[in-house]
């Protein structure tokens, strides 16, 4: 397993698994920041469309409503609305599939 986003000095976000579609801020990141993003298809970059506080997540790809949201290489819930690349992913647009009464 390779953490493509974990190499290099001064990294400001972390992709915990290559199959994730969210990355996590390692510092308070500002709207408009351009971050390098490695993927299976090669290196590219992403522009944050919102400020992302430390330890919060942003989408690295477009995630449609009801689409899978992934972190740690696993499903952490589904999108309750379309999420655009560089946008904050949190309780306003991500819902659990494992909370009580669901998914079991």
């Amino acid at each position, binding site marked *: 397993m390779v953490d493509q986003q974990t190499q290099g000095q*001064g990294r400001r976000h972390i992709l915990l698994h290559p199959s994730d579609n969210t990355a996590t801020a390692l510092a308070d990141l500002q709207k408009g920041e351009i971050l390098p993003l490695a993927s299976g298809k090669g290196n590219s970059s992403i522009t944050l469309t919102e400020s992302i506080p430390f330890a919060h997540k942003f989408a690295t790809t477009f995630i449609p409503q009801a689409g899978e949201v992934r972190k740690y290489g696993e499903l952490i819930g589904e999108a309750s609305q379309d999420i655009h690349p560089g946008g904050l992913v949190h309780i306003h647009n991500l819902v659990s599939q494992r909370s009580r009464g669901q998914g079991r």
Partner: protein
Amino acid sequence: MREMKGNLTFMGFRRANGEVGVRNQLAVFSLVTCANEAAIHVARQVPGAAVFTHQNGCGQTQADMEMVSRTLIHLGQNPNVGAALLVSLGCEGLNPSRIAEEMGQSKKPVEIVRIQQEGGYFGAMAEAGLKAQKMAQAISTLRREEVGIEELVLGLKCGASDPTSGLAANPALGKAVDRLIGLNAAVIFGETTEVIGAEHILAKRSKNREVAEKLLSFVDGLERRVKASGSDIRGGNPSAGNIAGGISTLEEKSLGSIVKSGSSLIQDAYEYGERKRGRGLFFVDSPGREPEIMAGLSAAGSQIIAFATGLGAPQGFPFVPVLKICANWKTVARLPDFIDLDVSGVISGEESLEEAGDRIFAEILAVASGKGTKAETLGYSGSTNIYTTGPIV
């Protein structure tokens, strides 16, 4: 995978039954809460002796008495224990002779002192002191020898967590675990509480359907007990504090904890107090609280416990070194007497998870060969207990 030849072995104590310890201690076990003080006092008289105390052993349901008995037996069988002295009151509910006999099946010296039969505290102290001194001297001649890394048994725990735990300390520990499993060592994790919300993921990582069903039954059992007491883990998580810290769903919270177990298949799942058999990754049913889970991991056979923390947890364990790993630089700076390994470079962007995992791996081997952890050198190892699920009667 990069392997330097020198890293594939460590210096351990080979026991009479062939198992390997990373420490060679006389362990004094209190068999019942009423014998705790005598056990602590006798251990104090013998330099290097470890003492294990707990709040059980009497006035409990049959199921709990069995769980306490098997936990004590398997703690005594832990290969870090060179010899064991059992301190009994005499009238406790569990059976001291059975515990001594089964502990002794690991071919180590085991002795019992019964306070009510030895003339009370002072009589028992004299008897216990002489037995302890004799056993401590007998095990003192054993020397470390070079053994293969496949003899290593690592337990995992995270506690006093913060956002850096799920982002750096736990995933970096998971990298070290994957490497150990790849080298045929054994790793044990637990914390059934932390699995709720990610149980389907662990079920998927189980070796077969039987193991998956055991894991799911542990989660169901814990949820049932919590609900019966009027609480609801699944409904109350993630907490408001978790959400403010960036965690959005229960799945995400649970994954941030179980990521420390890496990505290997789970070979088997055990009830609390059971001993693992074989090599690879194992799960033991256990609560998240430190005194009880560390006893469960040690009874399962862990020689070392790797403990990832964010805010800084102090505790060690009597005869099992506990290695503290932290990715919060403020905690590392503030609590130099608690934290063994600083992986805050993952957060500052100076280190990759693989590099941090390699340093954890190397430190585990150093501790296995005798390097003292912060908790060991501090002597902070008295917060111990055994898990029970029924009422005190």
